[in-house]
């Protein structure tokens, strides 16, 4: 469409369709109408532009298919795993209850299956891995077959109930340490050191995602799940004929809330911590959040690409219609109807869309499998059941074709309604005006070529604006992909560096007297100790409730800071409660209101506590109180749940060894390890997303710039050739020609920055939850990367078009009429 008809037609010689038409090599050729042949050859002539559009469509369809299919596949895999391995629906934990209580639980109306278990946290001691490792120890019935949350045994066998040292370990944990059946490791079980032998490696629907309570990401090396026979766990924890954990399923039609409130009532006097449903079960919760994010991503990213593709199609088809004015006139003169002509161009659009959608679906499936593999690293399922639903394919086709047709409606309509007698005459010359810059008197400093550039931009301001918007989308996509790592850096910095200063966090098996911290202070290498108290609680305000923990510190803490909404450290007030700002929003409570706190531990007091302040926190939500105030609220003595330590880094391994041996200590977390692990687990998916985003952003920028350049070349080849005839050099006409694109590209950068930031803000609101809130933080490097990808893509397309410009056939261009 770019060259004059003569020049253009000459190129058909190299078109495969021309060859087949000339020699009739293929049978399908014969059944095609002449008009359809024209369509294929037109497409071949604009192959560069069509390819650029196809790539943008591919990007949109591929991201759509990828996100949606991964979501569907994970959903399907999860549902199958839950169903086949009897994932429970209600989860209750308690202090201790006799096994006979099980019968009472079974009698609760609506309850189907009930399974009682013994669960405990244990410290592990793994040879060659000198860092704190903790595990959740779960009992399995002596027959080795849990009724609920059944195990998928990957290798090995279930435990022998007559042996008290056998365990089945979770797959991710085993993989992280290279364990196989027959291997062994040390564990401190209820204060006693023991060697455990691995008999099998398993997966459980209960621990699809293995995150330590309070953790921000899975740490497969430092946290694992162990399954031991009920007999062995019962003996070790003095839970013979008793249980401290119960899971159940519901009968069809049972009302979840009723069952839970009755179960809570039954468990109340046995120290129940409040039962929860699947939606509050840790692993399930993370999975659901992931689905929500995938769903949002599937909306945002494809929308950008499809929008840009529709714009590009609009530009290209408009130009095609305008260069083919006389062909359209001829077709109408020989009897083709408006509808025929409209259909012809519609087919052209649909053909490009078809190529894009088909390739996009293929690319999407390929990417989805890659993304699926990455997800499988986090979410442990026995298998990944990939699913591409027909409805996704249909949606991809309908959305893309619909947007493309909408985008080209005007151009196609114009072609269809073009009056033939008018189309017979050449288009009137475009009208130009002096630019605003010239009007305000700056004309004198502008060279003629610069004036041409500016007048061209001002002549079609809407088109220039759309071009700028299109290019800026590329920049925005790049920024939106880079922002995650900036924000995560910032979150980690706030959470792990500004708010937390300790080296280690020690948690006790049960609340203990404050004086126990002297034991910790006495350890060689420990520099400073600050105790804390944590109690599980349910917050209630109006009809809203939320279950979390109250965390308390010593007054004048040096190791743990609360940050206000401007991230300034604040003092914990001596009375009242401080809430995470997001929690206050969830409960619709504000400073000064009275919060009802139902403690789920000890005497389980229910108190009204005034909210005295709000704090900023990116990970998790909770309440904070002064430790003495919490002790008073609990009506307990001077009790602590654990302590924060600072430790001489050289002595850290030795301190850790000592801690493993302390029976009171349930677990140890090392802050630097957590940070390192966090980055390690995120690294691969970050890389995957950045890689994809770079390609996508480049595609948009390239697609828009390349198409704009080709269209301008087509519109202005005569003008540029005339300038060459007048003695302008190739460099000078390149300046005129590419200068315009340069101006538009540069103008697109700041807009891209703004759009990128807005996109980040949207993503952030779309994915925020009580689990975590990602702040919008963008480093200069991320903006620079966005700009660099756009500039590079623009330069590449500029060079390609420049090559054509250099080969402008002056004589031929001037000889033919427009």
């Amino acid at each position, binding site marked *: 469409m770019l060259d004059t008809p003569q020049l253009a*037609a000459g190129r058909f*010689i190299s078109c495969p369709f021309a060859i087949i038409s000339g020699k009739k090599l293929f049978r399908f050729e014969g059944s095609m109408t002449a008009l359809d*042949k024209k369509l294929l050859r037109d497409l071949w002539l604009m192959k560069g532009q069509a390819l650029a559009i196809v790539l943008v469509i591919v990007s949109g369809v591929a991201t759509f298919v990828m996100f949606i299919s991964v979501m569907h596949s994970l959903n399907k895999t999860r549902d199958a795993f839950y169903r086949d391995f009897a994932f429970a629906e209600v989860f209750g934990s308690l202090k201790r209850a006799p096994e006979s209580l099980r019968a009472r639980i079974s009698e609760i109306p609506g309850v189907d299956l009930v399974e009682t278990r013994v669960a405990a946290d244990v410290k592990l001691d793994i040879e060659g891995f000198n860092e704190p490792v903790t595990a959740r120890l779960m009992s399995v019935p002596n027959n080795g077959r849990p009724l609920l949350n059944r195990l998928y045994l990957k290798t090995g066998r279930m435990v022998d109930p007559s042996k008290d040292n056998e365990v089945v370990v979770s797959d991710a944990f085993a993989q992280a340490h290279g364990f196989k059946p027959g291997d062994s490791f040390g564990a401190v079980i209820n204060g006693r050191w023991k060697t455990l032998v691995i008999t099998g490696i398993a997966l459980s629907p209960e621990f699809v995602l293995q995150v330590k309570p309070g953790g921000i990401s899975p740490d497969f090396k430092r946290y694992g799940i162990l399954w031991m026979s009920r007999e062995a766990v019962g003996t070790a924890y003095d839970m013979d004929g008793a249980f401290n954990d119960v899971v159940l399923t519901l009968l069809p039609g049972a009302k979840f809330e009723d069952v839970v409130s009755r179960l809570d009532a039954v468990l109340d006097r046995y120290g129940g911590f409040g039962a929860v449903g699947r939606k509050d079960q840790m692993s399930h919760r993370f999975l659901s959040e992931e689905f929500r994010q995938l769903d949002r991503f599937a909306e945002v990213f494809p929308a950008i690409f499809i929008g840009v593709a529709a714009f590009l199609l609009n530009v290209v088809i408009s130009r095609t219609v305008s260069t083919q004015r006389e*062909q359209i006139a001829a077709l109408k003169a020989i009897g083709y109807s408006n509808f025929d002509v409209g259909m012809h161009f519609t087919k052209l659009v649909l053909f490009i869309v078809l190529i894009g959608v088909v390739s996009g679906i293929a690319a999407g499936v390929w990417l989805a499998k890659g993304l699926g593999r990455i997800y499988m690293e986090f979410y442990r399922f026995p298998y990944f059941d990939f699913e591409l639903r027909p409805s996704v394919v249909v949606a991809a086709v309908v959305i893309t074709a619909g947007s493309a047709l909408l985008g080209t409606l005007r151009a196609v309509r114009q072609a269809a309604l073009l009056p033939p007698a008018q189309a017979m005459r050449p288009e009137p010359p475009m009208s130009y005006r002096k630019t605003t810059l010239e009007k305000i008197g700056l004309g004198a400093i502008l060279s003629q070529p610069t004036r041409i550039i500016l007048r061209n931009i001002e002549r079609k301001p809407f088109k220039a604006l759309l071009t700028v918007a299109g290019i800026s989308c590329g920049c925005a996509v790049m920024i939106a992909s880079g922002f995650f790592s900036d924000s995560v850096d910032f979150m980690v910095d706030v959470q792990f560096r500004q708010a937390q200063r300790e080296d280690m966090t020690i948690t006790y098996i049960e609340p203990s007297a404050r004086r126990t911290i002297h034991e910790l202070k006495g350890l060689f290498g420990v520099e400073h100790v600050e105790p804390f108290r944590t109690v599980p609680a349910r917050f209630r305000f109006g009809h809203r409730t939320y279950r979390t923990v109250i965390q308390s510190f010593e007054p004048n803490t040096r190791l743990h800071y609360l940050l206000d909404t401007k991230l300034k450290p604040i003092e914990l007030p001596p009375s009242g409660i401080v809430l995470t700002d997001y929690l206050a929003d969830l409960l619709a409570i504000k400073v000064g209101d009275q919060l009802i706190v139902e403690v789920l531990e000890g005497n389980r007091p229910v108190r009204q506590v005034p909210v005295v302040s709000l704090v900023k926190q990116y990970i998790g939500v909770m309440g904070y109180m002064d430790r003495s105030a919490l002790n008073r609220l609990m009506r307990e003595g001077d009790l602590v749940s654990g302590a924060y330590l600072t430790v001489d880094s050289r002595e850290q391994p030795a301190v850790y060894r000592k801690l493993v041996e302390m029976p009171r200590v349930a677990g140890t977390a090392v802050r630097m390890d957590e940070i390192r692990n966090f980055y390690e687990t995120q690294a691969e998916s970050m890389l995957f997303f950045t890689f994809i985003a770079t390609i996508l952003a480049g595609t948009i920028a390239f697609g828009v710039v390349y198409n704009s350049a080709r269209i301008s070349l087509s519109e202005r080849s005569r003008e540029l050739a005339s300038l060459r005839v007048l003695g302008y050099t190739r460099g000078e006409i390149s300046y005129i020609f590419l200068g315009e694109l340069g101006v538009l590209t540069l103008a697109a950068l700041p807009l891209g920055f703004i759009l990128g930031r807005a996109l980040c803000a949207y993503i952030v609101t779309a994915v925020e939850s009580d689990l975590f809130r990602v702040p919008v933080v963008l480093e200069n490097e991320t903006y620079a990367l966005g700009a660099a990808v756009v500039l590079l893509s623009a330069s590449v397309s500029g060079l390609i078009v420049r090559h054509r410009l250099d080969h402008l056939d002056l004589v031929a261009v001037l000889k033919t009429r427009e």
Partner: protein
Amino acid sequence: MNGSSTQEAVHKKTGTACPVFQVQGLTKIYDMGEIQVQALRGIDLELAAGELVVLLGPSGSGKSTLLNILGGLDTASGGQVTYCGKDLTRATEKELTEYRRFHVGFVFQFYNLIPSLTARENVAVVTEIAKNPMRPEDALGLVGLAERLDHFPAQLSGGEQQRIAIARAISKNPEVLLCDEPTGALDSQTGIVVLEALERVNRELGTATVIITHNVDIAGMADRVVHLSNGLIVETSRNVIRKQPKDLKW
């Protein structure tokens, strides 16, 4: 192509023909924003079956406007045009499309071929939608291009391109052939080859033909010559003997 048989054919057709076109008081006004341009100021004209008419006139005399209205490409502002008794001035868009599709053949000054289609395919564009078309090969044979079926327009000379356009126009076996400056973009030698093709079609197929031109010399090959000026017919003359295109000179 010998002179006596041509004359015979002309006499035979003009003698027995009913009018293909009847034009009465045709006017056309172009609204160009602030000013109105009166392109046709009241034209009365008839065209008989098999007749070859040359419309002569300078640029802006209204020739093309008249041809476009006759061909159903443009609509009149006033007056009446009937084609074989049917009123074109009252025809709907759909009827005009059908009229163009089945009854009229067009030849344009700048050929208006589809550059992406070969000679044969350019003709097929018409034969695929017409009712009783010739084979594209036959139509191209009639204009002497049987050897160049699979060439693209860019590989052909201007005269050859125009002959494809003629083949395209006649391939539907139209009742009337309308040619707008068919030799306008050609040198005289090539122009004559094109005119020979038109003359042969008119003679052998009996297709009523209107050729518009500003070239007075071409008028010699017509049965009738209509002079237009400023939107009006100023003179009509009849050639007793139609000249052979090869005898024309300009």
